[in-house]
């Protein structure tokens, strides 16, 4: 008999694999339900007859629909998402090149946002009163203000007016740094975009943390701890936080998908060389294969992250194992 927990993981993997397949099918449907010839979607708006012929062959566009679906699924699984005519590179290569930069942005923002968000949320829930009101208002503002506008403003203020930070890119164009200076340079360029992304998420994480801590603190075991006369509130935090943070951590995990999308948009503001810039230029060029590819990769990343978070949550929550 397979252990309950392993069963749980297997079921989750099956579920998420099925989800991924659904994504591929949805993409396929989109390609074919779109107005116009699917060839142009798969090839992009090109006029080169040779290229079009090659695309038709590669995706089997002359064959019946269900065969096309199978071919498409096979292609995707093999990593073949088509070829970008405009950039003369296979789509997958284009995306994979850009992935690290986007990840850097996403991970940095997530890290900062989680730290500060949890701190602020806990503070708000613990102190209540004026501090709570201020933090709550700030976080409400934080989720109401469009992050890309914020990024724009920050660019204008901190980069153009004050000149504190570079206006874009990941590395300086004028001088080339090596060794540790390279990393510092990247970091320097990372500040504005990461902060932009982070603020939006800090607001969300603060709200979720605050809610979770409030709920935990009203539970009986905290009241008991206080009744026992435990000295500092800090000790209580050690009790309360451990429970309160579980839903927060899962929220952060599941929110990474949203963060990914945010990163993609933020990149266009700061010309950060990640998937976002690729997306933007492809939109302008009508380079559909790249757009489709970004969609599929984006979905794949989100699915994978969700799977990991799900499994981690299963590890943390002892109730799940019994399945």
């Amino acid at each position, binding site marked *: 008999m397979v252990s309950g927990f392993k069963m749980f993981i297997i079921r989750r993997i099956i579920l998420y694999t099925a989800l991924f397949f659904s994504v591929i099918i949805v993409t396929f449907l989109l390609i074919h339900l779109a107005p116009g010839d699917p060839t142009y979607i798969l090839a992009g708006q090109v006029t080169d007859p040779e290229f079009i012929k090659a695309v038709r062959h590669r995706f089997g566009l002359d064959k019946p629909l269900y065969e096309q679906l199978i071919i498409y699924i096979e292609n995707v699984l093999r990593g073949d998402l088509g070829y970008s005519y405009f950039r003369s590179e296979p789509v997958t290569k284009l995306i994979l090149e850009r992935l690290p930069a986007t990840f850097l942005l996403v991970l940095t923002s997530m890290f900062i946002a989680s730290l500060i968000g949890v701190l602020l949320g806990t503070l708000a829930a613990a102190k209540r009163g004026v501090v709570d009101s201020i933090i709550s208002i700030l976080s409400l503002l934080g989720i109401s203000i469009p992050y890309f506008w914020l990024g724009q403003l920050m660019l204008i203020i901190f980069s153009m007016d004050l000149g504190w930070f570079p206006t874009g890119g990941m590395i300086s164009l004028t001088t080339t740094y090596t060794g540790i200076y390279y990393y510092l340079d990247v970091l320097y360029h990372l500040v504005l975009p990461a902060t932009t992304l982070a603020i939006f998420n800090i607001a969300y994480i603060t709200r979720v943390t605050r809610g979770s801590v409030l709920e935990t603190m009203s539970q009986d075991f905290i009241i008991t701890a206080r009744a026992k006369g435990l000295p500092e509130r800090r000790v209580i935090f050690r009790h309360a936080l451990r429970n309160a943070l579980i839903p927060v951590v899962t929220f952060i995990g599941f929110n990474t998908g949203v963060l990914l999308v945010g990163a993609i948009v933020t990149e266009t503001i700061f010309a950060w060389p990640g998937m976002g810039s690729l997306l933007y230029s492809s939109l302008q060029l009508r380079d*559909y294969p790249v757009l489709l590819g970004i969609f599929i990769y984006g979905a794949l990343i989100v699915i994978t992250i969700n799977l990991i978070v799900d499994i981690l949550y299963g590890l943390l929550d002892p109730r799940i194992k019994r399945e």
Partner: protein
Amino acid sequence: MKRGILIIEKLKIIKSNIRLLLGVIIISVIVSLGLLASYITWYQPLMAMEGPPYQPPSLQHPFGTDDLGGDIYTNVIYGIRTSLFVGVLSAVIAMVIGIMIGTLAGYYGGFIDDLLMRIVDMAFIIPQFLLALLIATILGPNIYNITLAIGVTSWPGIARMTRAMILSIKQLTFIEAARVIGLSDTRIIFSELLPNALPPIIPYIALQASSNVLVEAGLGFLGVSDPNVPSLGMLLNDAQQHILMNAWWMSLFPGIFLSLMILGFNLLGDGLIEYMNPRLRRAS
């Protein structure tokens, strides 16, 4: 006399609920701006050369002019209209789809529930913004396609919520009693179930609208917007394209109104949810 007291009671409730109050005020102002657009602006939207390009705010052009010399104030006011239209309409679409699916899943249970919930899981995980982007791009960037794309990608949350509400109401005995009396399924859903399940969900239209306005602006920001219709996202895109001209007014004003709109809907939604809760408690 009694009526007067009732009204005062209701006003008192609204007063104690600041969020609702603020939300109502902000949204009312925004909607008025949108409705009165043609009366409060003196230029045409999306026109070029209403004045010299890249002008900072002045009496002539309260929000300045853009790269083509168009008046930004006019574009912002008309852009508000667009955001309201797309945001609210797409929210309604999302609500309709979500409520339908949630009700079917919740009421019939079993296989239908499993199937529908798997679909909801899938819809939930797919990055909404990317999908809407893809749909809007493929269908062609006009305002109806964009509204549709956003509406069709934002329903999963509502579906889950509706299903949860239906499940909790379904267990209540008066539903069984209705069946014993001989009410047909459709009658039960519309006459007994929904009137009890839906009211708590209504405030979420506002929250959904706020989220959808953000998505619409985001799409516009990336260039996916109807070229014949002014939109705040599009204005921010312009600002981005010409950022090196240091024309901060191109970014500031559209952004402020966008934020106000999102904030207003958020407050309205939060306020309504708070408003509904004590009432429910009184009723039980």
